[in-house]
């Protein structure tokens, strides 16, 4: 009797546990996602990261490692910081379905304002910076007024602004360059924190700052994950999560080590990091950011959902003016003066960064981080080609093709998604 009971009851018990396992597996299956689904689901956004890694590796090989040398990495940061600052504002403008062609001229006019005040009128450096930011905000409000409240397409308004503020720069500077700035002003773009904590051949302070940043990043990621788990949201499996943190930490610390062995932590990198952080949060986590995406995604639906479209559009341009002024300060500091032709075609680099970074021409799509990677991709490419001594003309052609391919990829993706319906 017991023998007959045994075999029958065992499978029952087994199937019960199997069911339970299935249930947990099912819950986990919906609760976690593996590397492949993460990649394929986000091909549009992950594509840019893959491309960036490929480009970095390619130029590291082509230049025999020079492109990754401490001095060169520092150089890239200094050289492209103002484009990246512009790209932060530009990607927001583009997400909302607009464009801003004037930022190059705004960089020039804000830099010139600052130069006139600091150099010609012998004011302290911070007066120049504040004046430049005020001018940038005013220009942003001017553009925002015409776009949001009069209803003129941003293309036209900012094309006019491009001419207007280039002309104003020439007026302010009397058509000649102004230089040099005071050493304090120059430090904004060319200053480093070096030797604060000493170090053997490298700046320990830089490593410390980056170390703290990595820890903060890991903790905040972990807390976000915990919160998502609490709300029964899908999260990456724990090993994958740890792997992601480790990879990011390794890359960041390697970058930090290279900076530390060169000249230390550039102040401009701190400015840039703060801006990326702040605007990353603004676009992802605030009501304002959400409304920007809504306007670009479907203007009519946003209007009928109670979004005050005019107000949002206005502030988008005010913000762009502000960031253009920040870029203007950084650029004038780096070039140690103001030139009538400063910032020429910066708008195109910023626009290219946003689009290469995954922003959609039709609006509603794009991220600040994507635009940063897009901008860095162009930066690493240009820098690599310069190191290799590639002719300026070829560089320009390569950049043009990369932009075209990036947007073609976007259009192709969208069509594929559309036919998938």
């Amino acid at each position: 009797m017991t023998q007959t009971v045994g075999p029958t009851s065992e499978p029952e018990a087994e199937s019960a546990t199997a069911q339970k396992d299935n249930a947990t597996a099912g819950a986990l299956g919906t609760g976690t996602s593996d590397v492949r689904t993460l990649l394929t689901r986000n091909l549009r956004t992950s594509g840019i990261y893959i491309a960036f890694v490929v480009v970095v590796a390619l130029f590291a090989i082509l230049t025999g490692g020079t492109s990754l040398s401490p001095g060169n990495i520092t150089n890239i940061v200094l050289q492209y910081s103002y484009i990246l600052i512009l790209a932060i504002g530009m990607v927001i403008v583009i997400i909302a379905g607009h464009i801003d062609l004037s930022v190059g001229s705004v960089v020039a006019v804000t830099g010139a304002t600052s130069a006139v005040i600091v150099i010609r009128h012998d004011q302290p450096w911070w007066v120049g910076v504040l004046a430049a930011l005020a001018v940038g905000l005013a220009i942003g409000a001017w553009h925002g007024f015409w776009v949001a409240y009069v209803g003129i397409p941003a293309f036209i308004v900012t094309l006019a602004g491009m001419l207007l503020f280039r002309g104003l720069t020439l007026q302010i500077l009397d058509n000649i360059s102004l230089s040099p700035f005071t050493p304090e002003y120059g430090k904004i773009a060319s200053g480093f924190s070096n030797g604060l904590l000493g170090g053997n051949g490298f700046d320990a302070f830089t490593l410390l700052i980056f170390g703290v940043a990595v820890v903060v990043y890991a903790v905040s990621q972990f807390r976000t994950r915990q919160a998502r788990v609490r709300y029964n949201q899908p999260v990456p499996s724990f090993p994958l999560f740890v792997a992601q943190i480790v990879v990011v930490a390794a890359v960041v610390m390697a970058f930090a080590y290279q900076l530390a062995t060169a000249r230390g932590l550039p102040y401009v990198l701190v400015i840039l990091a703060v801006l990326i952080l702040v605007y990353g949060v603004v676009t992802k986590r605030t009501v304002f950011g959400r409304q920007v995406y809504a306007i670009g995604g479907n203007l009519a639906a946003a209007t009928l959902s109670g979004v005050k479209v005019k107000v949002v559009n206005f502030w988008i341009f005010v913000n762009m003016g502000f960031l253009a002024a920040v870029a203007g300060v950084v650029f004038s500091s780096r070039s140690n003066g103001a030139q009538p032709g400063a910032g020429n075609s910066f708008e195109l680099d910023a626009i290219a960064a946003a689009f290469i970074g995954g922003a959609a021409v039709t609006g509603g799509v794009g991220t600040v981080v994507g635009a940063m990677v897009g901008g860095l991709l162009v930066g690493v490419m240009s820098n690599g080609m310069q190191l290799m001594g590639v002719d300026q003309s070829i560089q320009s052609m390569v950049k043009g093709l990369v932009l075209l391919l990036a947007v073609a990829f976007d259009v192709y993706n969208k069509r594929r998604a559309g036919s998938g319906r």
Partner: protein
Amino acid sequence: MSDPILEMRSITKTFPGVKALQDVTLSVERGEVHAICGENGAGKSTLMKVLSGVYPAGDYEGEIVFEGQVVSFGGIRDSEHAGIVIIHQELALVPYLSIAENIFLGSEKRGKFGLIDWNLANAEAGKLLRSVGLDENPTTPVGQLGVGKQQLVEIAKALSKDVKLLILDEPTAALNDTDSAHLLGLIRGLRDQGITSIIISHKLNEIDAIADHTTIIRDGQTVETLDMADESVTVDRIIRGMVGRALDSYYPERESHPGEEVMRVEGWTVKHPTQDRMVVDHASFDVRAGEVVGIAGLMGAGRTELAMSIFGRSYGTFVEGRLFMHGKEVKARNVAEAIDAGIAYATEDRKKYGLNLIDDIARNNSAAALDKLSTRGFVDANEETKAAEEGRRSMNIKAPTVKSIVGKLSGGNQQKVVLSKWLLTDPDVLILDEPTRGIDVGAKYEIYTIINKLVASGKAVVVISSELPELLGICDRVYTLSAGRITGQLPVAEADQERLMTLMTQEKELVG
């Protein structure tokens, strides 16, 4: 003596999942005015698109015989070549081009070296304009003309193509009474010159006045063709043919317990955004807590315009009218104020106006209620997801996760996202504009069930629908709207499709 210029035999046209036309037969006599009537979505426009080659031969079943010959049009150029010209409800004129340029667009008068001979073109255009009774210079840009005159330019354009059969789709829908009367007179004049016309119209008085025969289409099938010379054929007779459908859909049961008045609209009047006419004309209605109120009206009656105008003046130019919520007057001057006042409006075109198709369910769901899900300007992403999960559960939205992209959902599920989105704003009144358009029967039933749950919880619901059985199936009361005016109000117990249709087509007496 029967001498048909056109015979359409057993036309069947299928769209994925829907039979738009089934065995439709239409016979039009030479030199007559033939009217086609039917409810919204009955298949009138589809039939005309088959005839004019918009849906090319091979895309449908059945045959078309024109002037005694079986024809198969590959496109609109073929049908125009044969002498069939269709004038669509939305005029196809280029506003910045002159009258003459528009008339000869695509068939330009060529002179020497293949260049356009503008003197000839303008002279010819002038002749055509005189024949349609339009006293305008052929060089005037079309955009400077009113809609009525633009309609005449379209007809002149048709005449320039040596038209034998003229199809007019809702020609008077956007016209005022004087222009309508002029147009109808012109169609009569063309008939006397031997030009056959097919006219699609919701205005049954006009059909009664002008048509020789009327073919009625219902649910994609021909019902009957009436001889308008017959004394017994009246507007009522046409209406009976149009609505004679059984209440075959299934509606969930609901007990009705209307409570306090929630929203009242008085004398609401709205002007068209660009034209000088009132789209909504002194409309008044009210809705109570726990009540479903229907608004019935044909295309162009101003239903959507009325709803959108109430919802924060989102349509046209507000002229006058008062809006009361819970007996207190409110001024909802923009959408945000309307939402604050407790009004929600789910649009008739969810893809175009309701949803951000490239974004996910959670973010669409929260789009109108971000202030509820945020503190000091920061969105609480976890609360947002939680709200979306609740919406997904209570609405039974079929999607893998709330991070699914809305554009990839089916129509029924998209509509549920829209409903969930508006419920999140915790409104007192929900105005649902065509809530079941383009979604399948099962999903319709689910939407009705959701509506029932809403009113059971004390909300007030206004449903705008083209489907009369739907209104009769789910509403407590139905208002009828015609040419922007409320023409009647019936408790559903006293309403049937014929009575509603009679009120929906009631209009001012024809001028002239």
